[in-house]
């Protein structure tokens, strides 16, 4: 995984997440019929994220950022195809817990990967660059969705997001493959 593919895959997943976020909020509000349920759903997300952060941090040192990022992208691709189906508040709570864990995975690995990618050189510049592109894509997605939602159902929005997460995962998986190829080829080149 090199810096470019990392930024590309992160940009795609940012696109996906900013696209569905406002509608996900709406969904939570519609399923929960009181603000206390809304609060609990959000609290569960934040709390599981908080509790899993240290574990994920350690895990990332052991198994590497790439595997965790793959877990996140595939995980979210899966979650997004479940979201349109849920109808009950308890299903929503479970989903919030899963998303809490996955969210923590993303938050931690995003940082560890960036730190390892830059390896002390031009760190600020690279992080700046990283945030530029991921945020630009996020912003574009939010605006585009505003227009698209007139033509799409909210359900199909989640499916599109899932598809984007899947692409992001595939890019990550492919990238390593290419990288290894190049590494093999490298010694041949003088």
């Amino acid at each position, binding site marked *: 995984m090199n810096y470019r593919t990392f930024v590309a895959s992160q940009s795609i997943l940012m696109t996906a997440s900013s696209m569905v976020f406002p509608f996900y909020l709406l969904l939570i509000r519609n399923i929960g*019929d009181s603000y206390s349920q809304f609060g609990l759903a959000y609290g569960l997300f934040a709390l599981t994220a908080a509790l899993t952060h240290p574990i994920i941090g350690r895990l990332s040192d052991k198994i590497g950022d790439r595997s965790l990022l793959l877990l996140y992208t595939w995980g979210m691709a899966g979650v997004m*195809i479940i979201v349109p*189906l849920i109808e009950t508040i308890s299903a929503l709570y479970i989903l919030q817990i899963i998303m809490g864990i996955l969210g923590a995975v993303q938050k931690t690995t995003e940082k560890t990967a960036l730190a390892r990618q830059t390896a002390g050189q031009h760190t600020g510049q690279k992080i700046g660059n990283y945030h530029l592109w991921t945020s630009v894509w996020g912003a574009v997605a939010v605006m585009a969705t505003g227009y698209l939602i007139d033509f799409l159902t909210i359900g199909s929005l989640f499916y599109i997001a899932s598809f984007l997460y899947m692409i992001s995962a595939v890019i990550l998986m492919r990238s390593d493959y290419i990288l290894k190829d190049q590494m093999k080829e490298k010694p041949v080149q003088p």
Partner: protein
Amino acid sequence: MLKIKWLLLCLIIYVTAFYFSLHVYSRQSVTITAEDAGRLLPVRMKYFRGVHSTKEIQQWVKEAHETGETISIAGMQHSQGGHTLYPNGTLLNMTGYSKILKFNPQEKKITVQSGVTWADIQEKINSYGLSVKVMQSQNIFTVGGSLSVNVHGRDIRYGSLIDSVDSFRLLTPDGKIINVSRKENSELFPFVIGGYGLFGVILDVTLELADDELYQHRSAEMDYRDYENYFKEKVKQDDSVKMHLARISVASETFLKEMYVTDYVLADQQNIKENYTELKEEQMIALPKFMLGVSRYSDWGKDLLWKTQKEYFIKNDGKYETRNNVMRSDSEFMEYENPNRTEVLQEYFVPVDQFAEYINDLRAVLEKEELNLLNITIRYVGHDEDAVLSYAKNDMFALVMLINQGRSEQDIQATEKVLQKLIDVTLDHDGSFYLPYYSYPSDKQLKRAYPRIEEFFEKKREFDPEERFKNLFYERYGQ
């Protein structure tokens, strides 16, 4: 190669899951929950159709005709008795069907698609010195919705909305488009206006307009026993009074005793009208919203709201305002989003001469019962039996009550118990009640208030034998 295998495996699992999810979703998404402004009737509908063109509506009505599905027609959905909803049916959202088709300032007529709101019309005609004849006090509603409930408003000279309708086009249950006016297909005219969406889709409407005039507010405070005479002598007989609005206290200290009134009197100097013609926008939301909020939960809040409101209105005595601006009263501050509670309306009509005794009887009931009554606005509507479901069998005062209540089954039952008593009191005074609200009235009460209700439903079944246009109001009372 191992990586490719993994990638393929993941993709296969993903595609399978995706397909499975989509399969389940496409079956499940046949239902969408919809609600009207009363928020007591969440209903699962099959389709939500945002209407933009006549062709689309015609197409959907024909499709429904073939598949045997039902259609409910929705504007702003401020009717509160499920008039825009029916389980597993198609909801036609008319708000996008909103073009102004023709406007003739000389003839004082305007033709609009039924999803146009009063606000749209006001913006169009204000600069021509014209104004709507009859509409609600607020301008957020669609013309089609207003026609379907045959509204009335602050105006005291032009009657109910039906009186200002020239003609309209109706899309019938079998997908045909017909003109309806007092001359053409005239038998339908009094059924479709005040027809609660049961006869077809009102496509476009030609309305008669009035001159925009400059009014001067005339406000006064009075005891409820003096109101009838005040109205008869100072308002009704004085042709220069064009609009009228009153409030009676729901605050504990002055409960159903103290009143204040505002008359809108044609100003002597119409030449200064130009200074006031700019259409006003709602500005102060936070303060009234806060005060209304406090009044929901406490008696002192109600007292405070009453005093402030009264002072505010009395202070406006002598103020100049154009007719158009009087007809765009604030509404945003009333929006209420508590998930467990809601605010419902009731409107009772009582003959002018029976007002004081009626209020005494209402008070007697309300002092014994639990009801979180937040506001009562009083307006006047002259005798008018043009519509089959006419509420003004006499010259009537119309009392609109704003009630805060819970959304649970028990809450609904508790409110029903009290409201049925209030309705009995109203009917005993030869009164009537308005139909766009939650189905609290019993069948018996409905029959007493609307002697022609059977005729109305029979005509509905005759005109729409397959019951293509259906809503919860029809289901509750008509079947």
